[in-house]
């Protein structure tokens, strides 16, 4: 339920289902798909070029008899070894010259396309079908079926592809299109089998498979109706990507005289002939090779592009801070608050639109204060935290406002200076402690590394400080933990190590992004204790981001309720928790007060779904779900109103009241 990258987890508002993309590649409906494909190809010129080229070559192959100027097998020794027309001594009806037996090279190359493409396609079809079937039953039925198939696959894999094909073909009495394709295709079954098996295994683990069994479906039904439809997609993608390679293999085999029996004009065979005469006629080996190169290049470009289209992987790039947008020139003298966030807006410019994840948020944070930011998915709370420490995933950026930390505007200082701030003055802990620690470095190493980054310390002193940091979070078994790798520790321990890491240099501000969400309730209590102790000892301010308002009830000093990237309400406990003014705050508190609602009453629920940050309607973002919505709410976004000491709300109901 993270909202740091809004493009993937879009959910619809108002209970209306919309086309949205989830963590899996969205299954695209076929209607309207061609349009999407067209647009995609226009963006990816390489793929377009490849597709056009492949189609052309395929057409050449299909219409070879019509296009080729000569019969490729026609001999005329008197016309042997003629050079191509751009050389002297050529003949006008043999554009690319002739080979030693007087056969027209151009025609042979044209015909060669036929054989190469046919064999490649056949091989891929055979290999992928066989592999798909075996992978499916291997993954689904498991046990001895799986064991046998996988062991056979091990043996298959022990033979390098080319070697296997060569070995079998060398002893084959006859070599025609069918048995060539059979051999080549067969050699690849295990590639597909493994991929499909892997997918089947992971689909088997998913709840929907268990649900199907729970519904009473027989194993075959589960396999065919539930698992198969979700496991085959990888096959055509890989098959496409393999076609090009097969063309190369086929031509290699014909080059070695292990392909189609001569005088069939396969490219490899032409090249092999050409090699004998290459001193005299260098174009003879060059031209067929170029044919292969161009064909394979086009096929590869096309299939890479199509593969990306059908199975898009987000191209998450390296970390880059973008140049800043328009910033108001505000020079505020250094004040008391440790952190002053003013009008911060964070956006993610995506291909189709710009998603605003944080919309003009402002707040102050004093030293030693705990600010609790509460919100559901899509509220922008995590993005806000990442914006402060300037670690947004590309392409996110802060486009407006200021983040004044100890007087410095973090949105304007350079990378280098920001790195000095991080760790030493501002620390951050994340939701999933297991994946936030480098899995191949020991805990002690990571602690020492951070300490030595910000202070000049010898190894011994650093180790000692590392131990102290671990002690401070209540870890008793110091030596074991220092030497341990993260995966050896429990979730609670990992989170404590995370805190120790973040606090090791005693930063003034700690941002905690859903740190307890992955922990058990009883471990959660310990976590809050730790943080509270830290705060008391070192005076660290904490920004605690969570979806659970009850968790913060007596932990935070200030509460900030966020919805769709905006602040709904902010204030102290007495104000926000005990006397909430914003309808969303009220509704949130009501729907959480479960332990106090008797079982025979209905829970106060908010209809509809949390907003999709890419589809926020005009006006107040909560309007679609608000029980007290007014016409103005759908038109204008309410401004922030100050109700009392430190208590602010953004709601038309209050502006109406005061009017």
């Amino acid at each position, binding site marked *: *339920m993270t909202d740091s990258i809004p493009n993937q987890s879009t959910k619809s508002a108002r209970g209306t*289902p919309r086309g949205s993309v989830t963590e899996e590649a969205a299954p695209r409906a076929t209607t309207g798909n061609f349009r999407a494909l067209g647009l995609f190809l226009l963006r990816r010129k390489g793929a377009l070029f490849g597709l056009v080229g492949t189609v052309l070559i395929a057409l050449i192959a299909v219409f070879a008899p019509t296009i080729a100027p000569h019969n490729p097998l026609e001999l005329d020794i008197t016309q042997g070894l003629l050079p191509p027309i751009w050389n002297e001594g050529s003949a006008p009806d043999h554009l690319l010259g002739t080979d030693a037996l007087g056969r027209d090279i151009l025609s042979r190359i044209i015909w060669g396309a036929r054989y190469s493409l046919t064999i490649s396609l056949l091989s891929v079809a055979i290999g992928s079908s066989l592999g798909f079937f075996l992978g499916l039953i291997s993954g689904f039925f498991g046990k001895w079926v799986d064991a046998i198939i996988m062991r056979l696959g091990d043996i298959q894999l022990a033979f390098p592809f080319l070697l296997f094909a060569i070995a079998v073909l060398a002893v084959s009495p006859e070599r025609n299109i069918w048995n060539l394709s059979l051999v080549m295709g067969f050699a690849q079954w295990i590639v597909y089998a493994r991929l499909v098996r892997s997918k089947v295994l992971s689909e088997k683990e998913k*709840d929907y498979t*268990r649900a199907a069994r*729970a*519904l009473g479906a027989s194993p075959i039904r589960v396999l065919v109706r539930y698992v198969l439809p979700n496991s085959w997609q990888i096959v055509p993608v890989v098959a496409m990507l393999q076609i090009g390679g097969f063309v190369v293999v086929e031509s290699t085999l014909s080059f070695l005289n292990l392909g189609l029996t001569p005088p069939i004009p396969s490219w490899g065979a032409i090249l092999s002939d050409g090699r004998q005469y290459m001193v005299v006629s260098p174009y003879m080996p060059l031209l067929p090779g170029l044919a292969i190169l161009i064909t394979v290049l086009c096929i590869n470009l096309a299939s890479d592009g199509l593969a990306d289209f059908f199975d898009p992987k987000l191209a998450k790039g390296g970390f880059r801070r973008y140049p800043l947008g328009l910033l108001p020139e505000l020079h505020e003298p250094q004040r008391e608050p440790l952190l002053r966030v003013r009008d911060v807006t964070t956006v993610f410019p995506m291909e189709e639109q710009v998603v605003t994840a944080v919309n003009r948020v402002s707040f102050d944070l004093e030293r030693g204060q705990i600010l609790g930011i509460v919100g559901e998915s899509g509220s922008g709370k995590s993005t806000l935290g990442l914006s402060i420490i300037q670690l947004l995933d590309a392409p996110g950026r802060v486009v407006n406002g200021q983040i004044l930390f100890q007087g410095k505007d973090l949105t304007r200082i350079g990378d280098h200076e920001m790195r000095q701030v991080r760790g030493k003055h501002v620390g951050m802990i994340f939701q999933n402690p297991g994946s936030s620690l480098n899995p191949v470095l020991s805990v002690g190493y990571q602690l020492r590394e951070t300490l030595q980054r910000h202070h000049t310390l010898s190894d011994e002193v650093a180790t000692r400080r590392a131990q102290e940091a671990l002690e401070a979070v209540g870890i008793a078994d110091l030596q074991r933990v220092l030497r341990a790798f993260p995966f050896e520790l429990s979730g609670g321990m990992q989170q404590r190590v995370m805190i120790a890491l973040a606090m090791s240099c005693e930063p003034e501000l700690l941002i905690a992004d859903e740190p307890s969400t992955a922990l058990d309730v009883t471990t*959660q*209590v310990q976590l809050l204790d730790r943080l509270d102790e830290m705060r008391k000892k070192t005076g660290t301010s904490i920004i605690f981001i969570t979806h659970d308002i*009850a*968790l913060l009830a007596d932990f935070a000093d200030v509460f900030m309720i966020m919805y769709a990237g905006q602040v709904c309400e902010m204030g102290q406990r007495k104000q926000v928790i005990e006397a909430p003014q914003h309808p969303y705050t009220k509704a949130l508190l009501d729907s959480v007060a479960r332990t106090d609602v008797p079982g025979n009453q209905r829970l106060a629920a908010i209809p509809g779904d949390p907003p999709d940050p890419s589809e926020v309607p005009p006006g107040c973002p909560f309007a679609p779900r608000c029980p007290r919505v007014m016409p103005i709410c759908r038109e204008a976004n309410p401004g922030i109103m100050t109700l009392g000491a430190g208590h602010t709300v953004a709601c038309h109901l209050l502006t109406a009241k005061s009017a």
Partner: protein
Amino acid sequence: MTTLLEVRHLKKYFPVRQGLLGRTVAHVRAVDDVSFSLDEGETLGLVGESGCGKSTLAQTILFLEPPTAGEILFRGKVLTGRETRELRRNIQIVFQDPYTSLPPRMQVADIIADPLRIHKLGDQVSVDRKVRDLLQEVGLKPDWASRLPYEFSGGQRQRIGIARALSIDPSLVMADEAVSALDVSVQAQILNLFKDLQEQHNLTYLFVSHDLGVVKYMSRRIMVMYLGKIVELAPSQELYDHPLHPYTRALLSAVPSLHRKRKERIRLTGEPPKPTAPPAGCRFHPRCFMAQPICSEQEPELKEWVSGRFSACHFAMDNLAATAKM
């Protein structure tokens, strides 16, 4: 009240294999001698933290995993796992993760209709009608039947999952953390839906969750599990007000509440132990704040200390005394 489901000394162990030949060196005792009964029409809550075995228990009752030992009786008849078809018609389950509990490439109509087809309940026309009715009942538009799961939000997907579970009119529905993956504001919607459906269809629920608040709201009685065993079983309000087991007390006090101060919370020491090597005697004793010597030697039975209230603690009544002040 008729007894719908009875579980007797149920055990589910998972072998841990190691070594060259895959010898079994230990067992994960996910469910270790659990007994309870469920009356028709009631909601029994099952609560515990991660690794306590609650999900395994639900799935074993359904024979999604065959039990290692013990008996499961449905309406008085012992289930053998062989008459699965009949079993599946009577007991159904709603899963936790809305994003993986629906087959991603199947239309919603087919998802809900498949159980009807599997059990051959009705022809095409009546199946279609039933699907539309179900969609409406769970709060979705019948027109959406031809859409695919990815077009729906988390809460909506759970509704589809519920519709699917109800399609063949089961008597018992198990909700395995059915609201845990949803946003808070949506959880309330789904919980209300569960309650409405229970009334309309006279359903019996086994409601599994790690969230005590949810469980208390939904259930008439609550079972608390720790490391494969039931440590307490009592009516909801009484469990909440006067727990008879130290773990329950700790759990209750750890639940974030808008009204209870954190200072008053009970702190458990140490880490949750590994399920392959449960402690000797009472499984909770290493972390227990009331532990006495006997606790590490003798495992306490789940006894009925007060009418309708069971606890597996040697000092159950002391808990009562401690919390009576509240």
